[in-house]
């Protein structure tokens, strides 16, 4: 029984309900409360890391918490294994800094913004920690409900349209997962991950197929894989920059966690093999990746371009995880980390740069580099990571991904990754050229310098540069991240340990 696990969910949840109270009492203290509870959440993660240091290094971390004291098959339980710890700490780390970024960035209706953000945070922690399918579904819908208003937070037509679209797709995806859940409960009579995992093979092939398919489709819609990618671009382009960073950098990674948890731990990876669907998933994911990269070329809107690049990278991650060798899992998990850092730094830096341009269009960003050289260089460094240039972390994850494809004999899949990064070079370069274009004031074309509307500019730039620095530093010391990740990969390839822990403990 580790009480910290329940605290990881309740601290953001309680904060979310304290914020309106604080608004009534003393409005100015709101930002201190927000940062304080973000810091508490962060220190909980640090506490978990320090107290279980040896287990994390050896890859044998297992912590459990039973809600209400009921033992697993009857009550709901929270479990933290290596996989949960990895994703939980990524979420905590990134959201904490995005909260601080938001303090400088969001200038209006801050109370509502933080309420939604903290419930979203709690939901993400909940998904990562829960050991129960229904609980998992509830948190999944909670993410949808809280992130949709965040997308529409600018209160314009575009934002509302995007949020409605996001809701449509999210609800349909959730519906599929819910149908799968009903099938599971009606056939097995249990909702606990470990119980399902033990009894799943006793189901008939047809039932297994339908459950796996519904979960797969639901997750693919939520992830925005190619034929269902329309909401990603809309949502990530109109949302405020910290929310775009959150959606692209973290929420999507939570769906990848769900994919891993469901198809490796609950259903077992052999279900995919029996369905003979692995080749199809890799094909769809890589097609999605290439289509995303190619569509990014056509975009003349910087945030839509970044959103398409997200689609491109998520496809790669899914494809490499399905390969299911140790190196492939490591590569996928490392790219989750790398893509999170790089996308957040790209969105945070553009969020700042876009304050000085009339619109998101590339043509309006002419000459922005001359005014904000440091931030623009940060953008270039992060984009270099996206293309896979050393010494950024993106290079190492790219190397591991290609290596794992080659190791499994999938030479064409590996070359798709290379192709994607070459296209990425071209579309990011378009933006750099616009950024460095020389503009003379008073020329025939109308150009005016828009002054920043940010009232805490320093916070915004510092956090953006912090993420850029994290991209470079984590690349230089990628070996430090490598050993815990290989522990995670060991667990993913041997999910019985997780099942034994829940049922035995």
């Amino acid at each position: 029984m580790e009480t910290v696990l329940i605290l990881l969910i309740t601290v953001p949840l309680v904060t979310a309900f304290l914020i309106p109270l604080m608004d009534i009492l003393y409005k100015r203290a709101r930002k201190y409360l927000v940062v304080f509870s973000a810091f508490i959440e962060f220190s909980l993660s640090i506490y978990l890391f320090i107290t279980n240091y040896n287990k994390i290094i050896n890859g044998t971390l297992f912590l459990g918490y039973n809600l209400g004291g009921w033992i697993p098959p009857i009550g709901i339980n929270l479990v933290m294994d290596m996989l949960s710890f990895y994703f939980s700490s990524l979420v905590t780390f990134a959201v904490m800094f995005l909260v601080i970024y938001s303090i400088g960035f969001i200038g209006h209706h801050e109370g509502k913004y933080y309420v939604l953000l903290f419930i979203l945070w709690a939901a993400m922690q909940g998904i990562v920690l829960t050991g129960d399918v229904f609980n998992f579904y509830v948190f999944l819908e909670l993410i949808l409900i809280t992130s949709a208003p965040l997308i529409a937070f600018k209160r314009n037509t575009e934002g509302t349209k995007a949020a409605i679209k996001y809701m449509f797709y999210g609800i349909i995806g959730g519906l599929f997962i819910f149908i799968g859940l009903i099938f599971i409960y009606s056939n097995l009579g249990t909702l606990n991950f470990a119980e399902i995992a033990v009894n799943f093979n006793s189901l008939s092939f047809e039932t297994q197929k339908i459950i796996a398919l519904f979960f797969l489709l639901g997750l693919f819609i939520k992830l925005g894989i190619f034929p269902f990618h329309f909401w990603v671009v809309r949502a990530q382009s109109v949302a405020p920059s910290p929310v775009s960073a959150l959606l692209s950098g973290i929420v999507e990674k939570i769906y990848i966690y769900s994919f891993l948890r469901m198809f490796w731990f609950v259903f077992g990876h052999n279900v995919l093999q029996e369905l003979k669907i692995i080749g199809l998933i890799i094909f769809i994911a890589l097609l999605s990746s290439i289509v995303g990269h190619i569509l990014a070329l056509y975009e003349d809107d910087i945030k839509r371009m970044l959103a398409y690049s997200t689609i491109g990278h998520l496809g790669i991650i899914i494809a490499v995880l399905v390969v299911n060798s140790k190196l492939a899992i490591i590569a996928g998990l490392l790219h989750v980390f790398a893509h999170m850092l790089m996308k957040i730094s790209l969105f945070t830096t553009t969020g700042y740069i876009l304050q000085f341009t009339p619109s998101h269009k590339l043509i309006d960003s002419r000459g922005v580099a001359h005014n904000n050289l440091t931030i623009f260089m940060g953008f270039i460094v992060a984009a270099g990571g996206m293309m896979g240039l050393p010494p950024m972390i993106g290079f190492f994850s790219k190397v591991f991904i290609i290596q794992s494809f080659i190791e499994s004999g999938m030479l064409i899949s590996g070359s798709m990754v290379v192709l994607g990064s070459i296209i990425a070079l071209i579309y990011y370069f378009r933006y750099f050229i616009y950024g460095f274009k020389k503009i003379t004031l008073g020329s025939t074309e109308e150009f005016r310098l828009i002054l920043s509307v940010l009232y805490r500019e320093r916070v915004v730039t510092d956090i953006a540069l912090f993420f850029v620095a994290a991209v470079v530093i984590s690349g230089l010391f990628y070996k430090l991240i490598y050993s815990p990740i290989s522990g995670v990969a060991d667990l993913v390839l041997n999910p019985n340990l997780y099942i034994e822990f829940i049922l035995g403990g």
Partner: protein
Amino acid sequence: MLSTFLNQFVFNNFNILFTVTGIFITFVALMSSRDYSYAHKELFYLCNIIYIISFVMIIMTNNWIIFIIGWELVTVTTFFMLLWGSNKIARVYLIIQFIGSNFLLYVVLMIINAGYTTIGPINELNLQILLILGVGVKSAIIGLHFWLPIVHSRAPSPVSAILSGWVVKLGFIVMLKTITSGNEFLFYAGIVMVIYGGLQAVLATDYKVMLAFSTISQLGFIAIGIGSGNIYAYWGSVLHIIVHGLAKTSLFLSSGYWIKITKSRTIYNFKNAWFKDRKNSILTIIGLSVLAGMPFLAGYNSKYLIKYAAGDEIFLKYVFHILSIITYLYVFRFFRWAFFNNDKGFKKTHDEIKRSNFIFSTLTPILIIFGITVFSNSLIGLGNINFHILDGLLKNSIYIVVSLLILATFNWVHVKVKPVPSLNLLLINIKNFMNISKGDSKVNTLEVDMENQIYNSLINTSKAINNVLPKKLQSQLLLIPIAILLLLLFI
């Protein structure tokens, strides 16, 4: 921690020799760059320092991943150096090199997967050829060389010196480590490179373009040495990498001063160059003689060793004589137009040209070449070799006579002044070629921008995909049931 780090590197004579030469070349080019006025000097020096670190990584390491990191860093840093010249050239260079280095990354991972975890001899022919093609984009193997004359002739002179003198050699240094027992593909590619580069240099009217094509030609000699698998030719390649690196650096740096003095890049306008600048003339003559392989200069020693590649085959020996004559052809053609072209109306003016680092930056490489000539035997690991200087003198005088005769018959190859090669021209040529093959020989004089052409084709593809995809929410949502049906049918 430190020992595991140091274990990734090999410090043998071979590596240290190359590292010292590379650092020296960069240093000399940096000294010369001080004579040019440009902005952000500190950033330029920073680029050079990172460039030095990255090529030292390439040369010293025995770990493939560190090699790739160094390779990419060399691409990035040389791209930044080119930004001091022309933005467009730099951009094209980066895109081409990035494609090349990505291909190389892929090949290297295949090599690692085949069991060669450290950099060492590779025995599989297909992997060898893939590696040659991978490094070929930076090292200008024939067929992948198309960017080299354009970039090297348009870059600022100190940067051309670095690119032509050392960056192109890095690929060959890796080949020296991996292809130890010969590769026929590389051997014949080398012969083609010597002939193609040499003939293009003979036809060039621009001095820097001539030097760039001569780089391709001389790289061919290195490729022959590595590709033959003969141990003498192998060490000849090692020597030629160093000698050509030094000579080309000196020549490119002096070309920068020639352009300042004569205010032209065309060799016909050099006119009586000897009287315009004697010091520069002497250095240029010595530098080109090193390339031609005249006796008493290190170029002779390296070419003497490379000629062991012919083995006992008489035919190949004759081919090698022709290869030597080709180098003499462009060297003597340049001498004719630069030094024996009367300029009647010329008056020596004393223009203020900043050249305080001229002597240092162009003379020291030449001096070191003289040093190498004397100590050739101790530099290469084969013990004492008799270079047969007298025999060489005889042979080279025959080469000179033959090349002079050929040049005299062709009226010293006075071709029309061509514009500096650019990617536009390349694309126009490709387009014309396509038109000819279709039976339509109309010459297209439209200025076509290669980048725009490629971008447009890519963007049109994405536009087409974008147009196919549904725009309305209803039809987009309709894709979900379709996908389900397809999935159910598939399984």
